[in-house]
């Protein structure tokens, strides 16, 4: 499986270093990294995928580092979705795309996750009227996937309109939209801003950023040595340049004049640095003279490194030409992603230049994170191909378990209303919910939350049932269609069967048969009193005889069930016997 190998190697690269920390300074902190063709910077908002949750979590990266054992970690300050804090919102109706920033102190504020749990960037804009916040433009608002203006105190469990000066050790200015420089906002927004920067004195901006970051560093007990931090950065920059000069000039030459032309037109000294693929020589040379390279450098780097081969020129050119026009630049900034995907052969999916669909984006990254199977990444739509494979653990089983108490019952109700609930059966009854999720993931290439229905005395021993909540109605329908038309064979000759989950909800409590109620208080047997407790009935009482009737009935039905299951088992055995391949 050649494809599997390819998809296993998720592109990853550290970009900008910060200081070191830890006891022996063995922990390296970073300001940015490139993961799977997307550059993430400190304070970006990202999607984090957690298995068994229908929606990805959203959080802000507030710390990025690599441990001595090379494991990569990010500290994430969480956003809450309105549904997660429903209880505290009361009757208020909140727009679906409003988020609440975690604040205060306590569980759910922020935590450390493996970097690989990041599923994609998320464009979150602060719409707080606070004067510290630079107000977003209409266009920005329109493009934002989510907005926030309020916080949710995880300690006091209160929603507040205020954004404190410090949240989880982070200064408020990193939480608000950055004035003039949207460095810390999503990729989509960066483009136009860069131009502004260039027109103004972007050097100042950079310096401010640096200093604020440094103060923050010191304040967040990582005891980072500021000097060292700067040295690191310088070192990195130099190293970066050296390698750039040496690399792959042929391809860069094609671009460089064009870029240069464009850039010169707008303001000139704009340096392009590329980390591995191409370097633009002339401009790189001039880099050393410039201090304002930082942001543009990063920006362009991202684009070029994600787009490969010939696409490069197009992308670059379209990007630079369309600078200032947000819409166009948005397309440009998206295109390289999809192209690089195509090129690396990992996902055949049309990525529309719309970032609104968070789910799409999110699933996309998920699909690519799929390590064990090439299949999830190859065909997403209905072109089923026929294969056998072993079900392994779904990837990305990340560790953030702090939100485990989401009541399943509520989610089922909600999912059914939205048509996302599917009942699967003919499963081996001994499967666990987790295994069902894995099966759905591998078999249908869909993420879901599953719950095996617990066996009772009247459950069939031949067929296990599970409720599965898919992310969307479409996903549920697609899954059902595939299961209906195709044939997903589980071990022991069990083709998976599914239907729309149509549990009828107990609107009113139906009566439970068999417990008699007596209205008359004068009844010889004082039932009210007795009914309140439990007891073993003795043979000399009225209820004993009545109970014997129940025993009889129960016994008869037990027999009937046994017979039914036996007969069903027989039928199944016969039919399975004719299967060629078990």
């Amino acid at each position, binding site marked *: 499986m050649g494809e599997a190998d390819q998809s296993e190697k998720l592109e990853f690269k550290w970009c900008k270093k910060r200081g070191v920390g830890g006891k022996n300074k063995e922990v390296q902190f970073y300001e940015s990294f490139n993961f799977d063709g997307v550059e993430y910077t400190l304070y970006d908002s990202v999607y984090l995928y957690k298995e068994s949750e229908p929606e990805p979590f959203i959080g802000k990266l507030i710390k990025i580092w690599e441990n001595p054992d090379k494991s990569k970690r990010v500290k994430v300050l969480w956003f809450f979705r309105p549904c997660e804090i429903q209880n505290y919102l009361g009757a208020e109706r909140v727009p679906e795309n409003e988020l609440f920033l975690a604040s205060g102190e306590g569980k759910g504020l922020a935590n450390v996750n493996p970097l690989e749990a990041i599923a994609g960037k998320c464009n979150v804009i602060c719409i707080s009227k606070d004067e510290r916040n630079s107000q977003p433009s209409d266009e920005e608002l329109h493009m934002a996937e989510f907005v926030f203006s309020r916080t949710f105190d995880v300690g006091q469990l209160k929603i507040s309109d205020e954004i404190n000066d410090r949240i989880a050790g982070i200064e408020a200015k990193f939480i608000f939209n950055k004035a003039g420089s949207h460095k810390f906002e999503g990729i989509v927004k960066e483009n136009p801003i860069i131009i502004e920067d260039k027109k103004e004195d972007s050097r100042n901006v950079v310096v401010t950023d640096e200093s604020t970051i440094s103060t923050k560093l010191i304040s967040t007990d990582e005891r980072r040595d500021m000097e060292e931090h700067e040295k690191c950065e310088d070192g990195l920059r130099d190293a970066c340049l050296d390698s750039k000069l040496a690399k792959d000039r042929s391809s860069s030459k094609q671009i460089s004049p064009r870029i240069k032309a464009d850039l010169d037109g707008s303001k000139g000294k704009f340096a392009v640095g590329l980390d591995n693929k191409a370097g633009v020589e002339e401009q790189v040379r001039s880099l050393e003279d410039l201090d304002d390279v930082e942001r543009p450098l990063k920006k362009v780097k991202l684009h070029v490194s994600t787009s490969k081969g010939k696409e490069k020129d197009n992308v670059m050119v379209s990007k630079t030409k369309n600078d200032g026009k947000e819409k166009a630049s948005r397309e440009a900034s998206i295109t390289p992603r999809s192209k690089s995907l195509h090129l690396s052969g990992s996902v055949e999916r049309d990525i529309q230049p719309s970032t609104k669909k968070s789910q799409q984006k999110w699933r996309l990254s998920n699909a690519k994170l799929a390590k064990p199977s090439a299949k999830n990444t190859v065909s997403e739509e209905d072109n089923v191909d026929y294969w056998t494979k072993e079900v392994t653990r779904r990837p990305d089983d990340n560790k953030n378990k702090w939100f485990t108490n989401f009541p399943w019952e509520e989610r089922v109700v909600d999912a059914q209303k939205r048509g996302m609930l599917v009942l699967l059966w003919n499963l081996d009854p001994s499967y666990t919910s987790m295994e069902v999720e894995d099966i759905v993931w591998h078999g249908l290439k869909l993420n879901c939350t599953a719950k095996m229905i617990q066996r009772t005395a009247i459950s069939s021993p031949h067929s296990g049932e599970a409720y599965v909540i898919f992310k969307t109605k479409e996903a549920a329908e697609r899954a059902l269609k595939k299961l209906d038309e195709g044939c997903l064979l589980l071990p022991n000759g069990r083709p998976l069967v599914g239907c729309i989950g149509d549990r009828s909800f107990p609107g009113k409590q139906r009566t439970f048969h068999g417990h008699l109620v007596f209205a008359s208080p004068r009844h010889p047997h004082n039932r009210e009193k007795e009914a309140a407790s439990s007891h073993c009935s003795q043979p000399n009482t009225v209820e004993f005889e*009545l109970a014997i009737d129940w025993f009889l009935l129960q016994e008869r039905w037990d027999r009937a069930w046994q017979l039914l299951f036996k007969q069903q088992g027989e039928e199944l055995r016969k039919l399975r016997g004719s299967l060629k391949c078990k």
Partner: protein
Amino acid sequence: MDSTAEEYAAFMERVKRTIYLDNLSPQVNESILRKALDQYGTVKGVQFIPNYTESKFTARCALVEVESPQQAQMIIEEVIGSYPFMILGMPRPVRARPAEVEMFDDRPVKPGRKIKIRWVDPNDPDFQIAQKLKRLAQKHAAEASFMLKQQLAEEEKLAKQQSDALKANNEKYTLIEGVMADGSARLLASYYNVKALED
């Protein structure tokens, strides 16, 4: 691997000392259940099995963990098994069975199990059989659902029958009581010249 095997073994121990109870009234809650069984053993945990599929089927099921497998066996066989044991309502007794692995929601994955799945090619002869198996599974589910409906209908019938009989008895008692109370019994006795019962 060792740790998962250990975890599974620990879980199996738990299964062995757990009792499955059903035919419980929907009003039964954990504390009632604890109280009901505490006289026979030490209840360590109670879990209700949520009823997702058949909301018509309102009897509840629960898993009750007691201290030891022996205790569980004793309760199943000697207490609930030999006398009608009633909790929060009469006369329908609750039923107890040893718990099974599949009844637990939090069961761990069986260690070492491998699941292989396969999309069957429509040209494969197995495809037809698999399709048949699917239909069979659907048929079986329908059968079970029908059966359950029948069972519930019978339960309802029995309940109604008993309730009617009791109501009739109740009326008789009230009637007799009334006759004694308002003195008509004594009047009649003296009229027919028989000795009235002293009450």
